[in-house]
């Protein structure tokens, strides 16, 4: 496969380290502005739901964290696959960086969902709700990926073995997404990604989309920051990193 020349730079640790450092503050800034605006829209501007009242406002954090938890896993799996197939260390570094972030957003989706479930469904937790169970499985996949890596002394081996788990686990993501269509459960059916258009009014929808975008930027901000750390760890024997740490006394 022929790749464009600029693409090869993504295999260069110093270049990616510098790029992450330059982009990070911008992406972080955009994330904070979007999340602030979305929170204001969701808590203040959006009208209360005719059925759920103000409890529905939890949607503005629950849906974005669930979305990021799944998106992050897909990126982890793609990065792990690239690392496995082309032996690209930076791709493994990206997958490693994603795992703790993804786990935290999965926890957040479960926690906010439980809090929302109490007034809405009458229960914090339901063991028979497929979407809750597969989201819980997603949390175990993230934690399993990290635990598996920790079991290897040799980083190369950890990269390759954990990549297999990462890639296999991705089948869980479409299951979470389609669970509300395949099974009848406490979770409601899709309201946004429908063929006939969203069934949520615009003044409720806009803050939600802003929040989803804000959480996505926030995720990439965290990813760049962790990726920088991961590159430092993997490159500590190289000359460019020696120069970098000598230039910037801690």
């Amino acid at each position, binding site marked *: 496969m022929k790749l464009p020349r600029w693409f090869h730079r993504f295999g260069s640790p110093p270049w990616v380290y510098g790029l992450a450092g330059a982009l990070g503050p911008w992406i972080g800034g955009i994330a904070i502005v979007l999340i602030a605006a979305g929170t204001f829209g969701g808590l203040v501007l959006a009208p209360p739901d005719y059925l759920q009242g103000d409890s529905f406002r939890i949607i503005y954090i629950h849906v974005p964290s669930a979305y990021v938890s799944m998106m992050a896993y897909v990126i982890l799996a793609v990065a792990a696959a690239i690392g496995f197939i082309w032996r690209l260390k930076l791709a493994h570094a990206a997958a490693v960086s994603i795992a703790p972030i993804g786990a935290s957003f999965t926890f957040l989706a479960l926690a906010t969902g439980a809090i929302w479930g109490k007034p809405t469904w009458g229960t914090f937790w339901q063991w028979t709700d497929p979407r809750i169970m597969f989201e819980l499985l997603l949390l175990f996949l993230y934690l399993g990926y990290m635990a598996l890596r920790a079991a290897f002394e040799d980083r190369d081996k950890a990269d390759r073995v954990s990549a297999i788990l990462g890639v296999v686990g991705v089948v869980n993501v479409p299951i979470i997404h389609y669970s509300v269509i395949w099974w009848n459960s406490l979770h409601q059916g899709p309201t946004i990604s429908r063929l006939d258009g969203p069934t949520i009014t615009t003044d409720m929808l806009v803050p939600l989309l802003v929040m989803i975008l804000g959480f996505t930027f926030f995720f990439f901000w965290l990813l760049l920051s962790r990726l920088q*750390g991961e590159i430092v760890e993997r490159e*500590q024997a190289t000359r460019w990193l020696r120069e970098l740490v000598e230039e910037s006394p801690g």
Partner: protein
Amino acid sequence: MMSFLQMGGYAAYVWPAYGITLLVLVLNVWSARRSHRRKLDRARLSDGREDASKQPTVRRL
């Protein structure tokens, strides 16, 4: 203002949910930065030598 804080009677659910979200977001930033800084510190102290057990091994074909 009071009615905003009461969240139509759902304050006990809405505010903890937003609180835990803020906490997770802030902890994420703190933890990512700390990990980056610690790895830089370790690289500075390691003096260019990487732990031999962590070096990738070359396999003879």
